[in-house]
């Protein structure tokens, strides 16, 4: 019974495949229908159902795409490169070591209800994002802002009876003060801190808040008693000093964002962070309307209540179906917005997306929508969009236990995989390093170890897996102590089988595969509760190589390997203090090379974006994050001006 069942299914599947082949083989430049929509409306698949239309809540890219239509930030993603370009901030200055930024907000910008947008709205937005009550998952993006982390975790200052706060410098072990950022030191004048600023306006008055920001760092202790006592027990001097003093919770007003005047916003950071500008277009920093949120509470994003700040405003939201936005005449650059409306479809099934695209029901789609088995068919078509992505895939290695504790084993496992073959098969780029390749112009990326099975065997011999004659003996390797663990999503299974076959072929090792349900797997990863090898990946939060190296900046959190080195952290810190971008990149590259030497992970591939748009959709580019500034997108009705192939990406 079941045999005939699967037989029938098989025949039908075969028929379907043949039919699909026939349909597409009818030669065409494009995939399916190419009739532009009758109205001036873009129909776009943005990914899975948005968690919320409140820009500070959701963490994913599907929401980012919708938030980019609804909200504006200080800066916007460039449509071609996704580097930050002016939006609500028409210009900005960084101080001499990039630890403080002053943004000049555009005059005449308005929310969708007509309220003017001022620096105060950004102060509100950032404080709100950090507030413990909102519990925003992205809050840690603004931990670079002074007292941001402390406010978010409910930490406290310590104040004595004279109103004086205890200071860190009095309790820290002798620390190199030369390395402290400018913002931790008093500054005589703002002009001196910032140096010569282009244009007639100089940064802005010194204020009491500015001096507070530049005052010596106060002692910050955990808010909850248990962790506080633990921290105090570790430092007897501090414990004695704190006794009997008043604990003052860190408030929203202490966070380092200041409206110097209505159109000047100053953000003070705890460390030099040149990449901070790249964070500003993130939905978390896009400006929201205080009056609306305070009036409606949780219901403020309902279509009848919502107030937005972007080129489009919300017209309808049908969960698990679509979000409709229409052009907002209040937007500061409304004249430049070309589309009347965008319909975002909340879909995440690739076949469904491709079907709708072929039938001409949608005009564009998010990245990774073209399923890998379709690529041979789709790749030659002129509406296929592809670009290296600011996202990588790699395998974590457990550096704390088992055979992978030995760096030679880690290197051998890495060298025994032919990543070029993997990449060719997956239609992506091979990766040997820790940062994606070909994304960051000017970054002198170090190369990791190349495919070299002979050297891999020699390393394993050195690690002691040899027979009496000193030759490599695969039987000595304890394959039962190692597993390649992954969650069975996307092509993870096929990639794991490929890698397994590589190890079998090149080293004679049969490493068992193990699948785990996604969330179970994530928990196992963070606890280092996996044997040897675990699948992982990273998608950039902002366009900077530091975002990828930051994974190993702390021993816990996103690390997942157990590898951590103080020298590595120092190098990255030093890099971020540089004002010269090239010098900074060189130091970051040095840190990356250092991590590669320790091989805490096996880099696999730099992802490719792989999506499609109809040829009549213009102003939409295959950029590394597949995030499109919607005001530049338009529908071209003249077929002679259509995009045939990837549009011109040069500026």
């Amino acid at each position, binding site marked *: 019974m079941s045999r005939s069942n699967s037989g029938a299914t098989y025949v039908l599947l075969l028929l*379907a495949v043949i039919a699909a082949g026939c349909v597409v083989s009818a030669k065409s430049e494009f995939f399916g229908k190419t009739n532009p929509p009758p109205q001036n409306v873009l129909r776009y698949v943005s990914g899975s159902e948005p968690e919320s239309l409140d820009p500070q809540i959701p963490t994913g890219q599907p929401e980012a795409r919708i938030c980019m239509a609804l909200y504006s930030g200080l800066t916007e993603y460039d449509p071609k490169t996704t580097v930050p370009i002016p939006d609500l901030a028409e210009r900005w200055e960084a101080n001499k070591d990039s630890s403080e930024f002053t943004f000049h907000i555009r005059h005449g910008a308005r929310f969708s209800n007509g309220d003017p947008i001022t620096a105060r709205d950004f102060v509100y937005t950032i404080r709100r994002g950090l507030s413990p009550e909102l519990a925003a*998952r992205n809050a840690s993006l603004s931990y670079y802002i002074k007292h941001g982390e402390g406010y978010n975790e409910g930490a406290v200052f310590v104040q004595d009876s004279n109103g004086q706060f205890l200071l860190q410098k009095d309790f820290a072990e002798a620390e190199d003060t030369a390395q402290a950022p400018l913002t931790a030191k008093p500054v005589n004048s703002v002009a001196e801190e910032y140096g010569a600023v282009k244009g007639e306006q100089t940064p802005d008055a010194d204020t009491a808040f500015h001096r507070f920001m530049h005052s010596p760092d106060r002692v910050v202790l955990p808010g909850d008693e248990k962790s506080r006592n633990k921290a105090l027990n570790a430092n007897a001097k501090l414990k004695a000093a704190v006794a009997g003093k008043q604990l003052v919770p860190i408030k929203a007003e202490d966070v380092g964002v200041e409206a110097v005047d209505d159109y000047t916003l100053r953000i003070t950071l705890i460390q030099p962070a040149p990449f901070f500008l790249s964070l500003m277009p993130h939905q978390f920093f896009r400006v929201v309307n205080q009056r609306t949120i305070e009036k409606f509470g949780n219901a403020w994003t309902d279509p009848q209540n919502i107030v937005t700040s972007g080129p489009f405003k919300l017209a309808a939201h049908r969960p698990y179906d679509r979000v409709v936005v229409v052009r907002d005449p209040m937007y500061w650059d409304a004249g430049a917005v070309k589309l009347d409306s965008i319909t975002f479809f909340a879909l995440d*099934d690739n076949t469904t997306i491709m079907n709708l695209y072929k039938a001409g*029901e949608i005009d564009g789609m998010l990245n990774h929508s073209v399923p890998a088995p379709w690529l041979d068919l789709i790749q030659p078509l002129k509406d296929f969009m592809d670009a290296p992505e600011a996202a990588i895939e790699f395998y974590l290695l457990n550096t704390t236990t088992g055979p992978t504790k030995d760096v030679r084993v880690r290197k051998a496992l890495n060298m025994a995989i032919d990543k070029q073959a993997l990449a060719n098969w997956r239609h992506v780029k091979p990766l040997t390093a820790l940062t994606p390749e070909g994304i960051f112009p000017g970054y002198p990326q170090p190369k990791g170890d190349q495919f070299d099975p002979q050297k891999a065997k020699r390393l394993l011999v050195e690690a002691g897996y040899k027979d009496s004659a000193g030759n490599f003996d695969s039987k000595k390797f304890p394959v039962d102590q190692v597993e390649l663990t992954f969650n069975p999503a996307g092509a993870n299974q096929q990639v794991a089988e490929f890698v397994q076959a590589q190890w079998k072929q090149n080293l004679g090792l049969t490493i068992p595969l193990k699948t785990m349900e996604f969330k179970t797997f994530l928990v196992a990863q963070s606890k280092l509760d996996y044997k040897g090898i675990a699948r*992982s990946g990273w998608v950039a939060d902002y366009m900077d190589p530091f975002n990828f190296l930051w994974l190993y900046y702390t021993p816990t959190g996103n690390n997942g390997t157990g590898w951590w080195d103080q020298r590595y952290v120092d190098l990255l810190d030093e890099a971020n203090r540089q004002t010269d971008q090239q010098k900074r990149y060189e130091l970051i590259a040095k840190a990356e090379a250092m991590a590669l030497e320790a091989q805490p992970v096996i880099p696999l591939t730099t992802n490719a974006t792989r999506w499609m748009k109809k040829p009549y959709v213009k102003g939409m580019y295959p950029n590394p994050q597949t995030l499109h500034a919607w005001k530049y997108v338009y529908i071209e009705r003249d077929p002679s001006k259509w995009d045939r192939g990837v549009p011109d990406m040069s500026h």
Partner: protein
Amino acid sequence: MLRFIIRRIIVIIPMLFIIVSATWGLIRLAPGNFYTAEKKLAPAVEQNLREKYGLNKPWYTQYRKVLWNMARFDFGTSLKYEGQSVNQILWRALPVSAALGLSAYLLALIVGITIGTVAALRQNSWMDYGSMVIAMLGISIPNFVLGPLLVLLFGLTLFWLPPALWNGFPSKSLILPAITLSAIYIAYIARLTRSGMLEVMRSDYIRTARAKGLRERDVVIRHALRGGLLPVLSFSGPALAFLVTGTVVVERVFALPGLGNYFINACFNRDEPLIIGIVAFIAVAVLGFNLLVDIAYGFVDPRIRY
């Protein structure tokens, strides 16, 4: 009759209690949380989230809240979809699933009973065999194969019908999902009708009816069908309950915003209030539809008395 109904309704309460408790326990056993993601959270952020959603309270407090929510049939707010209450989601998704499920079942009843009756009346003829082959196909082809095949033919080759999306009720976009969903039910109903009818047609009261000189059409429609459809009726209770409360596969294939779609994603998202809400809702629907079927039995079959 009334006593029977009341007794059945009272039984629903402990069953719901068990179902909800078991679901809650299973969710807690599953590792990970609604905020677990590839990008790990800062410890303080996680702490804030746990505080916000009451996850740092002891288990009995959380369990009590689940039961209290159950008692009021108000399941709180979704963890994944900030600010949306579970009841809101249920009432929004239910009409979609119900429209699809009822259309599909109506189609299945009409086609299935027709095929089944024809097959029974012409037993062992080519019509009988033909019908049963169709029924066999309906049972053997899973809907995740049938759906894409229909899409390929009508959506992507002939371009007659949209390949996916929900455009309200009634609309062209409902046709393909309804056919896909009904296929297996057509098959079951046809087979049930056939065997039911075959049995009834041999029974004494049909012979009596014929002996009275009734026309064959009257014999079949007025006398035989009533008895012959009893198996279909008892099949309809649970079938309808499942159809109306969402069908994961078809809703996924055609991207319909129904309960099934929400349910499967709620599980992946570990969205506890939403999972419990949907499970409780489905449980009530299944128990309710079964009750309705039992009541209907009393009317259709004069031999059954409560």
